């Protein structure tokens, strides 16, 4: 039964090896998706390339349905899988700062690492900036501590919050995603920029 690291009592070395192997899969999938190209990623916000939306929602839904099926068949204890803690203010303010960084830099940290791995120099600058950002956060932590630690809601789950079963919420999410995919395909036709999307 999973998580295997807990039930099979993995050694530290084995845990690290699995992290490394999962990282290989993660980096491979991001690069194959085209996430190593900043102009492809930025297309999401101007409509000419919506790969980000398609990959992101498909991945979230596959992992969501997969983990619920594993749990249903008794193969994975979802209570032992990490659920992100919810600090309302920090999440919204942090997310907004991240969005500004996304449109300036053209990457998020994961896609920046993906782009660096195939030799993009702009990704190197983005990641170096990212390290400066982490350093600035650590040094300014006392000033933003109230925001960072405030309005803590615990590891709140959205199905519980809305009062529906996980299955019903998953179905709703799939319907929303299909609607968004349809809009995304329309947007790519309306805002197409073949000189950008054919370059890579």
């Amino acid at each position: 039964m999973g998580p295997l690291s807990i039930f099979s009592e993995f050694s530290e070395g084995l845990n690290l090896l699995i992290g490394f192997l999962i990282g290989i899969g993660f980096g491979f999938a991001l690069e194959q998706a085209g996430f190593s190209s900043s102009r492809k990623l930025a297309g999401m916000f101007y409509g000419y390339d919506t790969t980000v939306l398609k990959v992101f929602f498909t991945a979230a839904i596959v992992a969501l349905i997969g983990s619920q099926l594993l749990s249903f068949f008794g193969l994975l204890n979802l209570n032992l899988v990490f659920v992100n803690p919810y600090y309302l203010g920090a999440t919204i303010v942090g997310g907004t700062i991240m969005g500004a960084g996304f449109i300036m830099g053209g990457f998020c940290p994961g896609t920046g690492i993906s782009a660096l791995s195939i030799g993009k120099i702009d990704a190197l600058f983005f990641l170096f900036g990212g390290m400066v950002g982490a350093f600035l956060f650590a040094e300014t932590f006392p000033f933003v501590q109230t925001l960072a630690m405030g309005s803590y809601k615990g590891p709140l789950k959205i199905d519980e919050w809305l009062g529906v079963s996980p299955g019903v919420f998953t179905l709703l999410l799939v319907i929303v995603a299909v609607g968004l995919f349809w809009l995304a395909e329309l947007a790519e036709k309306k805002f197409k920029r073949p000189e950008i999307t054919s370059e890579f």
Partner: protein
Amino acid sequence: MNKKSYMNPYIAGVLLGLVLLSAMFFSGRGLGASGGLKYTVVAAVAAIDKDHAMQSPYYSKYFEDGKSPLKSWLALEVLGMILGGFISGAISGRLKFKIEKSPKISNKKRLLFAFLGGVFFVYGAQLARGCTSGAALSGMAVLSVAGFVTMISIFGSAYLFAWFFRKLWI
């Protein structure tokens, strides 16, 4: 080498979803990226000024009980990402040193905004306790409210600011 086109986005999404599912099944956790950058910074600060790191409530927690930030699941995962991306680029003929940018802007401008974007993104990720990978994608897969709110905040904000930075891209 012949340059191959990218994978169909829906198939790539399934692949990424299976990688995320593996992380949940094997290690009981999601994927991450900004955390790996943070660990590098924590290790670098401790290497340069050990006293500063140990006195700071922010850095010191990464060294409790003899822990080492670079010997962590996330740090190894980020190392793996570089190898995985390199293998993908090699297979598809995309390995090349280049600065990717709109022809309307200079290299210097692209690199400056790439740097600034990185500063903003990872600062925000520390505040929100995760980036697009660790908070938004992995968070949504475990149905956490934090995951959905992070996703909406990142994308909403990027759309909001897109008009101001349009010259960088289109």
